[in-house]
C-alpha cells in the first residue's frame, strides 16, 4: 500500500479509546510481513517486534482516536453522549456520526442543536456545550437497539489533498504509519537494535497503554511519536520535516544529541520544539517506567488537531521513517550515552 493510501485506511478505521481492534487489523495486514512477531498485550496495545541485536528500543504511537460514547437515549431516538478524549463541541455540530452497536450493526446519527433564535436569551448564537448537544439517531428504524456505552465517531472519509491527507484520526495514526514505514525500512539494514513498535491504546485518556507496555518491555530507549500543532509563529510547519523535541525534563540529553547529530549529518529536514515540563504524550509515562527509561519525542506537524479534518503532509511521514530507521541502525549495540 502506498503511504497516502495507508494513511487513509488508518484514519478511516473505527478505533475509539479502548476499542482499537479494527485498527489492529489494518496494521497487522500491512506490517506483519516485515516484522518477526506481532501480538496484543493485556491492556490492548498492539506490539510488533523487529528483532535485531540485544539493544532494546521502543517506539510508541497511539492508535486510539478521540470519539464519543452514548450516555443516554430517549424513547424517540435522541441520544446524549460523552466524549472519549478532548473534543471541541464546535466541530461536532451538524456532523454525521457512525454508531457502532453491540449487536454488531452500525447505525447512523446526526449531531443536532438549536437554531440561534430558539436558544435561551443570553447565550443566543453561542456554541452549545455537551449538555445541550444530542445525536439524532431517530433516523434508524431500530434505534431502540442503541444502548448506553455504544461508541460513535464522526463519519468522515479521509482524502488526499495534493501532497497532504485530511482525515478524522491522523492524530496519532499518521505516526503509526511512520512506525510501519520504519519497520519496513529497517529490513534494509544489516545491523539494528531490537525494535518494539508499540501501537498504544488509551493515550487520549491518560497514556495508560504506553505506561503498561513500557513497564513490561524494559527498554534501553523509548521514543514516542505524536502529532504537534502547525504554528508558523513557533517555527513549526507542515511539510517541513519531523519535529524533534530538544530538551527539558522529559527528554534524554544524550540520545537527543545522537538523534540530532544523525539528522544534521545526513541532511534530513527537521524542525525543533521544546518541552518545558511534561510533553502531554506517551513520552511522559515511558520515562518513568521500570527504573527509568531514556526518552525521546519526535512529532509530526499537523493542522486542526482533534477535528475530523486533521491534515498532515505525506512527505513528513516518509522523512520521519527514513530518519528513524537510519538513526536506530546507527546506534551501537553497547554504548554509553
Amino acid at each position: 500500500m502506498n503511504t497516502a493510501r495507508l494513511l487513509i485506511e488508518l484514519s478511516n478505521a473505527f478505533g475509539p479509546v479502548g476499542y482499537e481492534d479494527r485498527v489492529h487489523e489494518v496494521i497487522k495486514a500491512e506490517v506483519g510481513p516485515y516484522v518477526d512477531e506481532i501480538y496484543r498485550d493485556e491492556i490492548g496495545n498492539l506490539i510488533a517486534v523487529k528483532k535485531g541485536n540485544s539493544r532494546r528500543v521502543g517506539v510508541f504511537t497511539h492508535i486510539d482516536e478521540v470519539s464519543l460514547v452514548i450516555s443516554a437515549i430517549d424513547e424517540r431516538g435522541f441520544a446524549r453522549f460523552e466524549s472519549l478524549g478532548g473534543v471541541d463541541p464546535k466541530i461536532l455540530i451538524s456532523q454525521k456520526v457512525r454508531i457502532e452497536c453491540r449487536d454488531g450493526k452500525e447505525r447512523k446519527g446526526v449531531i443536532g442543536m438549536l437554531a440561534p433564535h430558539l436558544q435561551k436569551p443570553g447565550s443566543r448564537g453561542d456554541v452549545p456545550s455537551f449538555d445541550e448537544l444530542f445525536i439524532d439517531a431517530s433516523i434508524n428504524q431500530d434505534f431502540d437497539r442503541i444502548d448506553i456505552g455504544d461508541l460513535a465517531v464522526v463519519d468522515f472519509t479521509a482524502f488526499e489533498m495534493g501532497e497532504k491527507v485530511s482525515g478524522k484520526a491522523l492524530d496519532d495514526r499518521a505516526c503509526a504509519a511512520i512506525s510501519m514505514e520504519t519497520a519496513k525500512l529497517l529490513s534494509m539494514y544489516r545491523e539494528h537494535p531490537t525494535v518494539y513498535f508499540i501501537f498504544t491504546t488509551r493515550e487520549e485518556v491518560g497514556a495508560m497503554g504506553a505506561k503498561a507496555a513500557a513497564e513490561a518491555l524494559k527498554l534501553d530507549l523509548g521514543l514516542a511519536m505524536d502529532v504537534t500543532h502547525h504554528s508558523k509563529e513557533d517555527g513549526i510547519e507542515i511539510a517541513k520535516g519531523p519535529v524533534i523535541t530538544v530538551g527539558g525534563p522529559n527528554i534524554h540529553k544524550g540520545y537527543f544529541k545522537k538523534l540530532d547529530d544523525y539528522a544534521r549529518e545526513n541532511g534530513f529536514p527537521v524542525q525543533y520544539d521544546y518541552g518545558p515540563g511534561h510533553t502531554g504524550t506517551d513520552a511522559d509515562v515511558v520515562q518513568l517506567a521500570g527504573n527509568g527509561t531514556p526518552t525521546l519525542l519526535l512529532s509530526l506537524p499537523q493542522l486542526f488537531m482533534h477535528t475530523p479534518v486533521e491534515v498532515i503532509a505525506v512527505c513528513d511521514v516518509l522523512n520521519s521513517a527514513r530518519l528513524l530507521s537510519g538513526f536506530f541502525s546507527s546506534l551501537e549495540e553497547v554504548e554509553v550515552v
Partner: protein
Amino acid sequence: MKELIKKLVEISSPSGREDAIREAIAEEVRDYVDELRVDALGNLICMKRGKSGKKLLLDAHMDEIGVVVTHIDEKGFLRIDMLGGVSPYMLLGSRIIFESGACGIVSTEGESAREAGEIMKNLDFDHIFVDIGASSKEEAEKLAPIGTFGTYDSKFRDLGEKLVSKSMDDRIACAILVQTIKELKEPADDVYFVFAVQEEVGIVGASVAAFDIMPDMAVAVDVTAGPDTPKSFKRMGFKLGAGPTIKIKDRGSVSSSRVVSRLKEVADIRSIPVQYEVLIFGGTDARGYQITGKGIAAGTVSVPTRYVHSPNEVVDYNDVLNTVRLLKALAEEGV
C-alpha cells in the same frame, strides 16, 4: 443481608482510618476464605481458591468520605477540612461523629442577613464550623483535637426496596463482597477479594493491591450516581432497580472491553438484569488496577445510588442482591 449492610454502613471509618471497618469485615469473612492478609497500606486481601489456575480480583473500597479538624477557636468551635469529595452544602446542618466519640453539628457564618446570603451562594470550608458542645478551647481540645477524623453521623434506614444510610459508598460493595464470599462454594478461578483503603482521596490502595497478584481480570464494585431523580443529569440514562450497571467509562478510566463483554455474558447466562453505565464524572479503583504493572484488564460493576456523598445515600435492595448474583456468576463461570 440487610443486617450485614446495617453493620457495615454504620461503622465510621474515613480514608486513612480504616481499622474499624477492616476488623469488622475480617471477622465476617475469616471462616469462609483460604487466605487472609493485610498489606502494608492496610488493604484487606482475602482469597478463595479455584481450579483453573487463573485469577480474578474483586474489589470494594472500605473507606468513606470524611472531615478532619484543622483549627479550634477560643470558644471551642472547630474548623474542618475535607477528606475526599465532601460538599459543604451537604455538611450544613448535619451531624459529625469524630473518631474520639465526640459529636458535632455543622453550621455557617454571617454577621448580617446579606452576608449570610452571600456566603450561602458560594459556600466553602472557610465559612463553616463545627459545634461539639464545648465551651472553651481547652475542652474542645480534649474532645476532638486538631487532626481528629470524622464522618457523617447517620443511621441505616430500611425503606423496604430502598435502603438509606451514610457511606453506602462503598460499604454496600463491601457487604456485597462479604455476601459473595459466604455464598461462593466452587469458584472457577482463584478469587481475590480486596477491601481497599483510601479510594476517596485518590485511589491509593487499589494502585498497589494487585502488584503481587497480577490477576487475569480485576472488577471494582462501587456506587454510581443514579440519574433518575427529577430534572437530574440528562446525559446519563441508567436507573435504580433495573440491576447493577456495567461501567463503560468514567473520568478515571475506560473499562477494558473484555471485562465489559464477559460481565454481560455471565449476566445473560444467569438471566441477571444489568444496565450499561457512562458516568460523566468520577472514577473508581478500576483505574488503579488497569495501570498496575504491565496492565490488568479491569472494569467496574456499580450499584446505582442516589445522593452520593451525602449523609443519606439511597440504593435499591434488588440491585444489591443482583450484584451479588453477578459477582458469583463471574467467579463460578470464570474470567
